[in-house]
């Protein structure tokens, strides 16, 4: 299959390489803070990949929700637990690791050998339906998907109540 080198391909390669490296870093770093930072970087780059797919609304939501809120929470908790006891989160070696890595690579090979060749020729055609337009996203969310939307809002409410209960100190 002839591959033409375009500017878009170079940009994609840079973004995808950064995302993949950061993903490896999440697993490979022993220090939990560095893992978290790699994940932050991965999510940030993923936002740009969403931009490259012309889903701007979701790309920016990715940055707001994941890097801006969820990962700050992660880092907050890591630091809270790390405070004064840095040995706590250190990792030890055990026999599970090679087996786990083997299974992970096997999964990757299996998945990609089945799916990647199928879509190797699927080029991007011009965008007809504006996926990333905030108006279209909002309209779809509040018309066709209003029931799941309400269900998710209820889930979030339950989540808030649950986390407050968990964080509350026991009454003595």
């Amino acid at each position, binding site marked *: 299959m002839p591959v033409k080198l375009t500017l878009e391909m170079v940009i994609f390669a840079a973004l995808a390489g950064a995302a993949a490296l950061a993903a490896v870093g999440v697993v490979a770093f022993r220090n939990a803070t560095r893992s978290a930072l790699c994940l932050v970087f991965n999510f940030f780059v993923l936002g740009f990949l969403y931009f490259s797919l012309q889903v701007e609304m979701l790309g920016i939501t990715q940055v*707001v929700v994941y890097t*801006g809120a969820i990962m700050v929470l992660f880092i907050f908790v890591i*630091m809270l637990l790390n*405070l*004064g006891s840095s040995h706590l989160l250190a990792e030890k070696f055990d026999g599970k690791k090679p087996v786990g890595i083997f299974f992970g690579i096997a999964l990757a090979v299996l998945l990609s050998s089945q799916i990647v060749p199928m879509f190797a020729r699927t080029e991007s055609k011009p965008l007809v339906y504006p996926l990333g337009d905030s108006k279209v996203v909002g309209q779809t969310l509040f018309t066709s998907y209003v029931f799941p939307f309400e269900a998710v809002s209820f889930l979030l409410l339950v989540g808030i109540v649950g986390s407050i209960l968990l964080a509350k100190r026991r009454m003595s």
Partner: protein
Amino acid sequence: MQDVLAAFGRAILLILPIFGPVPVIIWWERRLLSWMQDRIGPNRTGNITFSRNSRMIPSFLKGKKIKLFGLLQSIADGIKLFLKEDIMPSKTDKLLFIVAPFIALFVSFTLGATVPFSGDLRFTPVADVNIGLLYVLAISSLGAYGLVLAGYSSNNKYSLIGGLRASAQLISYELAMGVSLASIVMMSGSLKLTDIVNQQQNTPLYNLNFAPFTLIANWNILSPMGFVSGIVFFICMLAETNRPPFDLPEAENELVAGYHTEYSTKRWALFMMAEYMAMFVFSMIWFTIFMGGYHLLPVRSEFLDGIEQKVGFLLGPLTMMLKGAFGLSVYIWVRATFPRLRYDQLMNLGWKFLLPLSVGNLMITASWIFANRVYGNAVGWGVVCIGYAILGIVWLRTRRKKQDEKQFGSRSIDMVVSSVRFSSPEIAAVADATEGL
């Protein structure tokens, strides 16, 4: 290739008006603050007095004084900071220690990329994307990382507590900020900042099409909903930039200097520059969203529009700089006026006052838009009055109840203190000492 070069050019056009004024901003803060505190402040650096009898000096300069009112003070400070010995404490996480100030700087530089500086779209904004407002929220939420990483990597408990406070504070105030912006988005019907500016200037006040109202532009701050969300956004803005009275991450009488305790020289200067640039950009963003952006006056007239079309590319940036400077002065005024909040007060203000207020404001905005469209103008404003009355009554009721209750500290900080105490006995002593934190 040309597109890439154009993108670089636009990025530089953004960085210049943000990075350029930093020395002036610092000088202005020190001078204004000292004027408010009845001091003099830096007023000497940069003054030149030419000798009266040296031959090297041309005759028209002999004995003349050039006064710069201390304007060069921050440049002198900068030179000093960049020439000092670079100290990095032992057992720091070196990579993160170096990266942290750059993250803060990155956030400040990129924050204003969607802010329009003039009606002439050839030059600004850098990227006129149709999610400009969300972009501002997204980038400002990244600001926590610089502070948290600085606190973590310094290997110092005061720094760490400062970083923790920064992350908790940013998460808390982000919410109220987002919700307060949501009502502006509902009123202007767009997330694009140029659209928000144009919508403010091109519609008559309150959308009323008769005599006195058609002359005045519909700036968001002039409507009650916009006013409330403007106030909420301003308070959240103070908290996001870690300025007094919300400067708990660097509270110097509790935490030495908070997250930048271990930072010195260039790296500390980078933090300071990032903070001042973030202040400047945030005030410009505030004026863009609430007070007409690059338009100087809330007046709609053919004459002014004509002027704007002729010299808009000059007038717009000048207006934005002026508005940014005014916002900065308010920042400094607030710093000189209010004492620092206690941690539980900070959390209470964010979660129990600003968030409910902005959610209530959002509901009122929604019902105003609905009533306006369906039943007409008069009913719409009636709904607004009733809405604010209900909001006020609820606030008064809850306030009276709160006074009867015994006051408890905030949960989150109890959590911090208890886990600190849990993890090691030495730190327990520190935690006891900083009980009020």
